[in-house]
């Protein structure tokens, strides 16, 4: 708490002295979303359906991206990682509790059997962005590609609140 408070103070002081960074959404946001249009919250590639990609607002160097993936195809697929213009590196990580502290270990790949679902969620699997180039603000969106062995799946990632535990549309059927 103290760490966060002091760091916020530091950041505030430094922000006064330096120009504010550009907002990610300015560069990457799609056209204004029409009411009821949730199409850019989902994407599909050869029967592999991904929905509700999201991350948390942060000004840190790393960010975790979560998503629900359903393998509706009749073959097993493998999630191999991803890429995005906003980060230098994107890798799959798995949550572990090390000595009582949360930690994320890189995973080489994540197989997903035909007909199964894979949830990338807090305290579980995630795609870790490192070398994040801009601060991520709640309400922003950016684009990324999920890399599967069957191809690349492009979709929008919604930036939720810094303490969010799920996508703001979680539970909706798209």
């Amino acid at each position, binding site marked *: *708490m*103290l*760490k966060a408070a*002091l*760091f916020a103070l*530091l*950041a505030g002081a*430094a*922000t006064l*002295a*330096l120009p504010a*960074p550009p907002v990610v959404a300015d560069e990457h946001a799609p056209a204004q979303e029409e009411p009821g249009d949730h199409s850019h919250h989902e994407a599909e590639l050869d029967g592999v359906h991904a929905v509700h990609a999201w991350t948390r607002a942060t*000004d*840190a*160097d*790393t960010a975790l991206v979560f998503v629900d993936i359903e393998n509706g195809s009749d073959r097993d697929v493998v999630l191999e990682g991803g890429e995005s213009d906003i980060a230098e590196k994107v890798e*799959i990580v*798995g*949550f*572990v*509790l*090390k*000595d*009582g*502290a*949360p930690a994320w*270990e890189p*995973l*080489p*790949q*994540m*197989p*997903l*059997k035909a007909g*199964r*679902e*894979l*949830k990338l969620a807090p*305290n*579980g*699997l995630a795609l870790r962005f490192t070398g994040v180039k801009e*601060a991520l603000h709640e309400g922003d969106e950016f684009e990324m590609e999920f890399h599967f062995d069957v191809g690349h799946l492009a979709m929008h990632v919604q930036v939720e609140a810094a303490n969010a535990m799920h996508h703001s549309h979680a539970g909706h059927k798209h």
Partner: protein
Amino acid sequence: MPEALSDFWYALSPTAQDALLFALLLAPAILLGLVVVAGYRPFALVRAMLWRFRWTSLLFILLIAVSVGIGVGLIAQERGLRQGTARAADKFDLIVTAPGSEVTMMLAAVYLQPSDVPLLSGRVFNDIAGSENVSLAAPIAFGDSFEGAPVIGTTAGFVTHLSSGALAEGRMFAEHEEAVAGARVPLAIGETFTPAHGVGPSAEEDGHQGHVYRIVGRMPASGTPWDRAILVPVESVWEVHGLASGHAPGSEARLGPPFDADYFPGTPAILVHADQLWANYALRSQFTTAETMAFFPGAVLASLHALLGDVRQVMSVMAVVTQVLVTAGVLTGLIILMRLFARRLALLRALGAPRRFVFAVVWSYAAFLIGAGALLGIAVGFAASAIISRIVTARTDILIRASLSWPEFQLVAGFVSLTVLLALVPAFLTLARPVVKDLRG
């Protein structure tokens, strides 16, 4: 945050970040001290004042120490609980149970707080045990006990996994009537016991009359509730309940997998272990179905810890407020105390001592009380945490270790900086006193 500052901060190791934060929090106190005493040496006089009013000073130091100790102890205890509960779950990579509450299932399977839960069938067990990448699948069948110690039915593979490969004493069970005891079970190798049906005060002591186990081995201490458990072959647990042995007729004497699904009475939980983390995640996805729930105890714990962290944050704020209030009280006391010093300080002024020297003496005196109280508070907090840890360990069998880490030192550094700043008030008030009037007493 500006990129250069952000890059610098994230390039630091966590220890360097903590050390820097500590230094930044303590810096205002040090800088203030340097400015206040610059050019003067007030310490001899401060020492004399401390000695002259030693009991009052000691009381003030103790008051500050207790208030700082509450904050330090709170943070240290929360971390100790978090680490202790996480250590206890270390061996439990993935648990598969019937669908229900993950917390309830985790408490039952990992922390041995049994509850009535549905059983998983032999078909489910064999599906899991036969899956690709599964290096260990073991039933965890709880429900019986002996004098408060849970009796758990499982396999030799699980005992080996829990013992990190080697028993501390004796050997593995090889017969239906043999058992391996946890490190703190009060039964020696060679001793026998009859399990009670159930756990706790309502356990039926004579529920399994005629069934006798003999201890043949002992697991090393793990600092977990499993130190108080007695592990027996799962086949024998089924048998003492009058059920099939898990193996087809003619093979009843067999112990361990593979089990025959048709003669598998059921198990409340299955421990699944894969050598690779990604495989554990793949297995969780595979066994999250309509009839099974797969979860990582570590992830469930992390959610509980987050809740614990929120409570700690609220309590930390209350602890800081308490500290500041106590210090405000102490400083108010100091203002009154300065009236006792007034004649001596006025004499100093009359002898030609500069106002700033007198100011430095009063502030240094207050700063010493705060600094000494804060240091003593760290010791008080650690001692309180050590005592509470012992009590919690004795009651839960989860080894809780008290330790001091950066957050406690950062809290104390912040407290010291804030309160020595407040200590400027009595120093200014002292200067405002009329010298001549004070000289006359």
